[in-house]
Every structure is written in structure tokens, then in C-alpha cells.
């Protein structure tokens, strides 16, 4: 057990302790990724191989070619959007991208603006206003689900992009994180900017925002995961299939066609998962840094 102690100057020589550590860690890591690998593999099999549980139907053990056709087949099986005249899957993608991009962009703007006042302008009642913002953290989104759905009906926002985007344009967490970050920027910079004849707006755009890149990236990434993953709300406030987001589209496909055509279902799931994983590989440094710094999901 001695090798289990964190040590700065321990040489990495062979010991049973280290064998144990590596065995556990590698097993865990394999379990973490195997569902993804299995998903991709299954999405490239014929229906027959899926049903017969043929784990590796391709050469050298079998004679089946990789079934790339499953992907276009899955897209075809999900149906067409008659209004925009395209496959529904493509429409789901467009919807998800529109909603995710607008919420991420919107949250950044509202957070940066509000945080700037909280950090730099001593408006009367600032502390009370800030307490008010923090108090809304106490209101969980599930608590207000029913009234918000009713509001969407009353405003005729049901089944529109507005319902999917506008309620998510603000994030208390984003405001809080930005404010914390802005306060760390040395005050001298502000005075120097004022002497140079700049006002608040110049200072915000040319000093604060460039210096706050890490906080901005963290907020953007966390909100990206949150928006891309949203499921319950879109399910509640959309009716037409062409207003669905990817997650809802996938669930509906699973509940109908994909329930039996597993190879197509997993091809669909692959189309949802793979872009995010690729994106994650390029940005994972920021993810872990952001998570470590904030410790909070969006």
C-alpha cells in the first residue's frame, strides 16, 4: 500500500501496487469508452449481424463489408421535413445548432454586461441587486416548469424557436463567474484607461473582454453542453417534428422506427454523439480547466 501515497520524488519502478493501480484505472477507462465503441461498431453492421449478436462480422472473421449505408438509411427512416424540404435529421441538427449557438451567445452577452456593472460601476442598490441575482439560484428550473409551459401557451410561443431560446438567454452562474473574474483584473488598468480618455464601453471591449478569455470560454463550453443536451423543455414546448431538437428527435425515433431497427438507431445516436466527442477532443483542456475552476455544470 505504500505506493498509494502521493509522492513527489518517487521513481516509477515496478511494484505490485502500481500494477494494481494501472489495472483498475485501465479497466475503468475501458468501461467508460466501450459503449461508444460498441455503438459505432453496431452502427456499421447489417441488421442480421445485430440480431445474431455477431460481434465482428467483418474481415478477417466474417465476410460482411462495413455497412456505411446504415447512416443514410437512418436519415431516410427518420422522415422528411416538408416545410424546409430536407431530411428531418438535418432539420434536427439545424434546430440544435440554432438553439445552442443563440443561447451560448446570448448568455455571454447578458453575463458580461451585467457582470461589468457589478464589478466596476457603483450604481445605487448594487448589493441588493446582486443578492437578488444570487437568490434566483435557489429556484430550480424544474420548480418553474409548469408555469413556464403555461406562459409559452399564453404568449403563443408554443412550438416556436422563441420558446426554445429566450428563456435560456440568461445564466446566474455566468454572471457570477464573470463578476468574479472581472474583479481580479487590477484596478490600475481601469484608472489608466480613464486617463487615456477611454470610457466604460472602451474599457469593457478592449481591456476586460480580452483579459477574461478563460472565463468566457468556460461559460461558453458549460452552456454549450447544457443547451446541446436539453431534452425535457423542448419535449414540452414543441409539437411538430420539424421543431424538434436532436435529443428529442432521437428519443422519438427510438420510440417508433428505431425501437426495432437497432442498427439504424445506433447510427442515429452516432450522428448525435460523434460531433460532440470530436469537439471535446479539441477543447478538452478548457473543459477540465473550467470544471476544475468552477466545479459547476451549466
Amino acid at each position, binding site marked *: 500500500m505504500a505506493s498509494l501515497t502521493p509522492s513527489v520524488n518517487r521513481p516509477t519502478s515496478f511494484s505490485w501496487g502500481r500494477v494494481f493501480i494501472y489495472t483498475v484505472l485501465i479497466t475503468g477507462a475501458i468501461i467508460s469508452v466501450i459503449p461508444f465503441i460498441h455503438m459505432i461498431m453496431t452502427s456499421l453492421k447489417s441488421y442480421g449481424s445485430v440480431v445474431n449478436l455477431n460481434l465482428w462480422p467483418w474481415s478477417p472473421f466474417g465476410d460482411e463489408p462495413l455497412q456505411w449505408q446504415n447512416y443514410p438509411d437512418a436519415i431516410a427512416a427518420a422522415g422528411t421535413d416538408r416545410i424546409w424540404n430536407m431530411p428531418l435529421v438535418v432539420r434536427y441538427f439545424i434546430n440544435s445548432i440554432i438553439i445552442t449557438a443563440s443561447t451560448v451567445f446570448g448568455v455571454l452577452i447578458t453575463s458580461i454586461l451585467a457582470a461589468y456593472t457589478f464589478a466596476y460601476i457603483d450604481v445605487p442598490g448594487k448589493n441588493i441587486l446582486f443578492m437578488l441575482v444570487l437568490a434566483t439560484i435557489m429556484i430550480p428550473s424544474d420548480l418553474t416548469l409548469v408555469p413556464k409551459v403555461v406562459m409559452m401557451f399564453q404568449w403563443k410561443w408554443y412550438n416556436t424557436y422563441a420558446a426554445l431560446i429566450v428563456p435560456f438567454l440568461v445564466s446566474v452562474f455566468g454572471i457570477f463567474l464573470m463578476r468574479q473574474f472581472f474583479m481580479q483584473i487590477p484596478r490600475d488598468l481601469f484608472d489608466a484607461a480613464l486617463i487615456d480618455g477611454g470610457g466604460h464601453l472602451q474599457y469593457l471591449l478592449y481591456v476586460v473582454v480580452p483579459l477574461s478569455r478563460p472565463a468566457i470560454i468556460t461559460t461558453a463550453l458549460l452552456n454549450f453542453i447544457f443547451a446541446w443536451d436539453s431534452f425535457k423543455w423542448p419535449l414540452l414546448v414543441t409539437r411538430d417534428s420539424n421543431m424538434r431538437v436532436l435529443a428529442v428527435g432521437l428519443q422519438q425515433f427510438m420510440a417508433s422506427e428505431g425501437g426495432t431497427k437497432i442498427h439504424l438507431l*445506433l447510427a442515429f445516436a452516432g450522428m448525435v454523439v460523434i460531433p460532440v466527442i470530436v469537439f471535446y477532443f479539441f477543447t478538452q483542456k478548457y473543459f477540465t480547466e473550467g470544471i476544475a475552476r468552477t466545479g459547476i455544470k451549466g
Partner: protein
Amino acid sequence: MAVTAQTEQVRAPSFFTQRRWRKLQEFSFGYTLLAPAFILLAVFELYPFFFGAYISMCNWTLDCRKFIWFDNYVRAFQDEDVWHAFFVTVMYSVISVPLQLGLGLALAYLLFQKVRGQEALRVMFFMPYITSSVASAAVWAYLYSPDQGLINFVLGKFGIPAIKWLGEPTGIFNLMLRSSGVTLPWWGEGPSLALLSVIIYTTWVFVGYDIAIFLAGLGNIPTELYDAAKVDGASGWNLFRHITIPLLSPTTFFLLILTVIGTFKAFNHIYVMTGGGPGDATTNAAIFIFQQMFQYNRYGYSAALSFLMFFIILILTVIQNRVASERVVYD
């Protein structure tokens, strides 16, 4: 130039001195920056809170048909299905919270031992957390499939007969005792296998996140403490027990609160994998509240249940805070 000189002359004695004018300008600028966030928060957080409280006291169909005060709340306490959903929620939380945190801490601690390829391992552990929960739940539903799933396939290789996993509403203790002919009552049969399958999935998703947070916490413990303890002859388990655990307690507490709240709100993956079934074996509070609104259009009842849930989470958080104030070591 003459014009500016003139206006300043006019303005000088008035209430709006230049200085005050500047301040006023600054303040209005400040409030303008706050406005978008505040309007959105007021409309989509604050107002719905009070509106929801109102709806919860209504017999609601399109609008408030009848104001019935606390009837929805009273009804909730008499509703057997509510108690069942609450039972499922608590069961889900009680099992998955220690499982997630324990596994997360153990793996983080091992990862922290200057392991080669630490970065790659961490990326792999984190992958389930960042992928869309609906997609990964769909994949897991397939993994759990009794006749086509990978899990039963592997178990079959070891001679274990097919297990129904997500489709099994029987409690796990009763499943174990099945061959002996003994049947335990509902309160003693433990979580249903379906619920346990959901819990395994949840653990798979969140362990990577817990690892990331624990690693950050471990990095904050000064190494001198370990060195000093080692000089005093402590090693292995003792170091972990008397240095790591106490100094990590703020991180653990933070994760505990977050995970408990998370398990009480669990929805997406359960809805995708089982829809609350089989029967109502995995119908937790979130699924039940959703069904009341989405399927039965009982808006008032659903709103009342949401408030009850909110109070339960609030009480739990307060209790956890109380306990933590005695136990958590902040330095």
C-alpha cells in the same frame, strides 16, 4: 466654442453640475448593462415562481377554473403513487450517491499517483459526461437488451442465463432469493433491478465528472503535509485516512450537495431508457411530475408536486449544511 462656453455658463449653477451629470450618465449606463439580465431573470425565474405557486392552488385547465387553496397538496399526501415515486427517488439517491462519490474518489486518488498517461485516462473517464444523455441512454438501453445486448452476451459466455435488466421490476433481494422460494415484502426487497440498471448507467456518466473535481481538490492539498507525516512514520492508508479525507472534505461536501440534488432531479435518461417502467418501477418524482403534466394535463397538481419536491430538496440541503459545519474542515 462660443456655444459650449455659453451652455456651461447656464448649467453651472443648476442642480446638474458637470460632476453630477457624469455620475448620472455612469449610473444609467450601469443600469442599462444590468437590464437584459434582470428582465430575463424577472420574467423567466422570479415571475414563474409566484405564478407556479398560484397554479398549484388551482384546478387548472387552460386557466384557473377554481381556486382550491391547498387541495392539490393535500391530495398529494394521500396519493399512493406519489409515495411510491418518492420511495423510488430516495432509493435511487441513497444508492447512487455513495456509489458515484466513492468510485470517483478512489479513481481520482489512483489517477493522482503520478500515473503515466494520466491525461488520456482522464479524457476517457470524462467522455460519458459530455455526451448527450439521450444518446448515451439509448446506447445503454441497447447494451441492457435481454436478447441482443452486449452485457447479457458477455455474461452468457460465463454461463449466466439472460437477465432482464431494465425490464425487471422485481427487487434485487427477491431476485436473489427466487430459487429458495422466499418472498420479501415490498419494503424489504430492495431496489428493483430496473432501477439498479439505471443507477449503473448514472454512475457511468458521472464518475468522470467526480474524478475531475476530486483531482482539482487533491491538487490543492499541500504536498508538505504528506512529507511531514511520512517523516513521522505514517504511510499508505493512514495518510489517506488522516490527511487526504479531511483536507478533501470541502470538495466532497460540494459534490455531495450537487449529486444529491442531481439524483432528485434525474429525468432524461430514465425517460429514454424505461419511461418510468416497467409498471412504475423506475417512476421517480421527476418522471411522475412530468407525466402528471404532459400526459394527464394536471397542471395544478403537477405544480404542487414541484413545490413539495423543492421543499424536500431545500430541507435536505439545510440538513447537509448542518452536518457539514461540524464535519467539513475548511482551512
